[in-house]
Each structure stands twice: as C-alpha cells, then as structure tokens.
C-alpha cells in the first residue's frame, strides 16, 4: 500500500509501540498544519540543500502543541504552556544555525505566552512561529480564548463573550516581526508557500493559521473547512473596504532588518576588534 508522502518525517513505530495515529480529534486543523509544515520543510530541504538535522520543532502546550509531542522524526521538544518561544530563544542562542519552527496555539501564544510572543517579535529572533488559531481552548474542553470573537458562547462564556478578540498578526507586526502572514487550513498551498518563506526569513516569522475545531464548535470537519474558506478575504480586498465581517488573510508584512543573532554577533566582533587594537 502506498503511504502518505510525509510519513517519512514521522515516527510511526518505536521501541515502546506505535505512535500514530495523532492524538488529535477527527478533522482537527492542527494535523493539517503539521502536514503543511512538513511539506514546507521538505521543499526547503530539497531546494536549499539543508539537512533534516538542521531543523528543530518546539511547541508549548495545547492541541497544536501536541504536534511536537513525540511524532516527529526530527529534533524536537514539547515544552511548557506558553514558554515555547522562550525555549526556542535558548536553542537559537546556543546554536544559531538551527532552523527552529515553533508550533503554538492561540491560547499558548496569546494568553499564557503573550508576553513572550511580543518580546520574541520585538527582538526579531530568527524563528518561524506557526500559530494554529482555532479561537478557543480545545484540549481543556472549549473554553474562551483571547482570539474568541465577541458574543461567542463557550463553556466559560455561557452567556456570550464580553471581550473583544486579539488580532495576532497586527500584534506581531506592531511588535516588530519581520514576516507576518495569516492563512487558514482551507488555504493549503498558500500556507505551505508562506511557511517556506517564513523558514527562509532571517528574523521572526509569525504565521497565523486559522483552524477548525469540529468537536467544540459542533460542525463536521468538511463544513468547517468550507466555512473557513468563506469567512476569509484577501488583504487587498479588505483594504478596499470589501471585507465585511470576513477575516483578512495574506501577507501583513515582509521587511528586512538584522535579526537578534546578527546584532549580537556585531557586538562580539566589535569587542574582538577592540581587543586586537589594544594588543
């Protein structure tokens, strides 16, 4: 039987037994994001002459963070709730050659890890952040998240959400990320291309992927997939005032500026040249 092409990057079997299928619920968008991310990595490996061992996947806690729990046949870590970006910062400082991809969710990145998200973007650390936004806390049972729209009922907003949601892309852009884009699981090709671009970007790439939680939103995966497509609109159309209630998708920014490691290396080089002058 022919196997799915991306299974070459996953640990199907290991000493203690099978690891697949993914723990995620049927039709969960996080699995699709893993599929897209692996395709992007596959393309970068083939096109840029990188090795598989140059890549590291790091996640926090939540549905999307399970992607780096133990399935990947890559160096990886499934870390603390909200702290994936701080852990990734450490790995980058220790070995800037690593291509680090962070799987995070809206709760992980915007609530408990919100401060780390802001500062990671501000520092322009060379990380690729894939934020799977399903608008709620899935793993703990569908509670309200910072990305849940106003008025939506969840188990912890039984009378409707009284708060407004975060626009994570605008947040990342304002905080200083050099590459910011939003797509949805219903935009497979755009998402894959965008992740490739993010990996190649020398600086913080924040990529938000709107995703579906068929379980807590009580719709079939196919319905949700269709709905995601309908509820999004290109940034260009949105800019022309034609978005309505639709969510803009596309590239929010793609700028060039030195990343943290480059600037710090400049300091190291300056100190060494000062020292040589003194000798």
């Amino acid at each position, binding site marked *: *039987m*022919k196997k*799915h092409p*991306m299974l070459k990057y996953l640990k199907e079997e290991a000493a203690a037994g099978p690891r697949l299928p993914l723990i995620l619920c049927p*039709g969960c968008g996080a699995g699709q994001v893993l599929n897209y991310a692996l395709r992007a990595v596959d393309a970068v490996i083939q096109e840029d002459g990188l090795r598989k061992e140059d890549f590291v996947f790091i996640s926090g806690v939540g549905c999307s963070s399970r992607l780096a729990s133990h399935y990947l046949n890559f160096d990886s870590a499934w870390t603390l709730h909200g702290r994936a970006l701080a852990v990734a910062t450490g790995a980058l400082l220790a070995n800037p050659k690593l291509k680090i991809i962070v799987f995070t969710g809206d709760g992980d990145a915007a609530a408990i890890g919100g401060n780390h998200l802001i500062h990671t973007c501000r520092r322009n650390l060379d990380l690729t952040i894939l934020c799977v936004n399903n608008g709620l806390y899935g793993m703990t049972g569908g509670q309200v998240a910072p990305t849940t729209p106003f008025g939506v009922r969840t188990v912890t907003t039984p009378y409707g959400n009284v708060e407004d949601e975060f626009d994570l892309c605008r947040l990342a852009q304002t905080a200083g990320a050099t590459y910011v884009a939003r797509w949805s699981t219903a935009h*497979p090709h755009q998402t*894959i291309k965008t992740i490739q671009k993010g990996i190649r970007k020398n600086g913080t790439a924040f990529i938000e992927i709107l995703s579906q939680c068929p379980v807590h939103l009580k719709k079939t995966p*196919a319905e949700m997939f269709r709905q995601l497509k309908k509820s999004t609109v290109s940034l260009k159309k949105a800019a022309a005032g034609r978005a309505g209630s639709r969510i803009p998708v596309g590239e929010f920014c793609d700028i060039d500026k030195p990343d943290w490691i480059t600037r710090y290396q400049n300091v190291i080089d300056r100190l060494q040249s000062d020292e040589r002058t003194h000798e």
Partner: protein
Amino acid sequence: MNKLHVNAAYCKGCLICVEVCPAAAIRPCPMINSRGYTLPEEDDMSRCTGCRLCETVCPDFAVAIETDEDGGE
C-alpha cells in the same frame, strides 16, 4: 488509473479529502468501519487528475494517491 490508498489505522474519517477533491473522484464509504469512522473510498478514479490535494489537506497522513508514475518506480 490513479488509485486511492487509505490507511485505516490512521484515518479518522474527517472526509476533508472528499470535500476538497476538485474532480469528485472520491466519496465517503457507505459503511462505518470498526473504529466508528466513515472512511473515504474511490468513486470514479478516471476523474482523478493526480493533483494530490487530498494528500495535502489530510490531517492524519492517512490518504495517498498512487499514480502511474509511482507504479513505474
């Protein structure tokens, strides 16, 4: 003719593959399997263009399209 492979151990029957197929080459299987899932199955594979969108969107790495090129390998 292209062939649809479904890994029954991994597939959770979300049917997003059926949803995205631009050629309507695959369909939900009328039977529910032993794990309670409705898996995709071939409908009219003569319509399959080998675009592999079903593979690309699969959240569970469960479906694969075999084309003549694969057979030739």
